[in-house]
């Protein structure tokens, strides 16, 4: 009798868990395994288009030509190789692979001269981010996530806000006092991702061999996807190209 009761309770437990967390479950399916002869992918994300020069007026009071007064981090790409900065390359639908490593030093987003620096970060779920205020004035930090608990906190000079992001989501961070200021926190469930540097370069290693779907996200240009076959202990080079839209 006792055993039956126990079984029922156990059954309940699973059922309830399943019902109440169905939305998390669909994404929380990454298991860590040992990856012995994983492959590596390197390459560049490129943008073949012309820059739209709108953005913050950094040199408002200076005697400069209009074009050099504005700067925006919305769409930055290299003039030399068309490499696109701040794009996030990640494996899509990967269910198992290398261990997730939460960085020992927390990533930082600072507010300086009414701008968020850096403009975008990509983190593995479970990472805590420190959001600082380096300006001698009030700011606020406002996120609009649903899965990760959103927040909107006022911050004073040298104040630090520490928040952990547990669920995969692309989160925009804004300051309502300075509307042009915003940053992105891209949270990914697994450790297979990289954010491109100013040459659009990325690298992802220890990928289990086989064919994987890769996804690139960029705030202005959206998503692109591509299948890539990874061979054991080999480096595969691949470029992702956004054509002008």
């Amino acid at each position: 009798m006792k055993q039956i009761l126990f079984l029922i309770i156990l059954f309940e437990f699973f059922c309830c868990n399943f019902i109440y967390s169905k939305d998390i479950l669909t994404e929380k399916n990454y298991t860590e395994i040992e990856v012995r002869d994983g492959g590596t992918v390197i390459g560049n994300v490129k943008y073949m288009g012309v820059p739209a020069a709108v953005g913050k007026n950094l040199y408002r009071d200076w005697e400069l030509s209009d074009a050099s007064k504005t700067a925006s981090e919305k769409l930055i790409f290299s003039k030399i190789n068309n490499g696109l900065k701040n794009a996030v390359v990640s494996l899509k639908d990967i269910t198992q692979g290398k261990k997730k490593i939460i960085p020992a030093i927390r990533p930082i987003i600072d507010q300086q001269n009414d701008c968020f620096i850096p403009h975008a970060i990509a983190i593995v779920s479970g990472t805590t981010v420190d959001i600082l205020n380096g300006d001698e004035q009030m700011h606020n930090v406002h996120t609009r996530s649903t899965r990760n608990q959103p927040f909107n906190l006022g911050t004073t000079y040298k104040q630090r806000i520490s928040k952990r992001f547990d669920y995969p989501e692309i989160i925009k961070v804004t300051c309502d006092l300075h509307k042009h200021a915003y940053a992105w926190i891209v949270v990914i469930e697994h450790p297979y991702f990289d954010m491109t540097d100013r040459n659009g370069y990325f690298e992802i290693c220890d990928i289990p061999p086989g064919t994987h779907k890769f996804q690139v996200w960029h705030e202005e240009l959206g998503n692109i996807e591509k299948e890539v076959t990874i061979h054991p202990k080999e480096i595969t080079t691949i470029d992702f190209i956004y054509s002008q839209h």
Partner: protein
Amino acid sequence: MKPKVLLDKVGFWRATAVTGAALMLSIAPMTVSAVNIPTEVTDLGKDTYKKYCSPCHGEEGKGDGPLARSMLPKPRDFTRGAYKFRTTPSGSLPTDEDIYRTVSYGVPNSTMIPWDILTEEQRASVIPVLKSFSEAFEVRKPDAPVTVGLPLRPTERAIEEGKKIYEEKLECWKCHGVEGRGDGPSAAEQEDDFGFPIKPFDFTTGKFKGGNSAQDVYLRFTTGLNGTPMPSFAKELTDEQRWCLTYYVMSLVKPEGTKK
């Protein structure tokens, strides 16, 4: 009434077993002051919502009912779980009691009336319906309410102290204006999380949306108004400073404004 409704609705044994206990608990303490708020969507809740709330808040809680079109502020879109008036910290979901309070008290300066024409039971019954519109209530739980310390006396000194915080330390005037008329330098461009324009509150009117008591005002800037630019100032102030700021904000109310 309630057990029956529930039984019809969820017609199989396991749900009954799970909710049975919860139900018994929720029925038991039936005192005059404490309303019991059902944990599951009931037929009464559905009917009440459809009849009284959906014309503005929409059939699916998206804030897009037939009456909503020309309205500003817009009826709340419940799908994100962003509730303005809470006792819980910034970003947290509201407690059931928070929602119950808003439904009963209404939102002054908007078309959301106090729903005291409904019975307590009806008001309580819509709460699970509102919550069912957002996946947020499935993945998260409301955080514990913030603690409100013992009130200070609203002395001249306290108000003076509050003024300093308002003007120098936390720069509330940037949005709310120096005189509290909601016309600060950053006021013009504000919009809420749903993309609609929103004005920083004009304190001189005195009709606080979240309630006029000192504790209400204290809670508003301590928890922030989710889904709006109004931030939470949770870390920056001691409890004493909070009361000072509260009294200063309340001192900005112009007597003509209160008389209306």
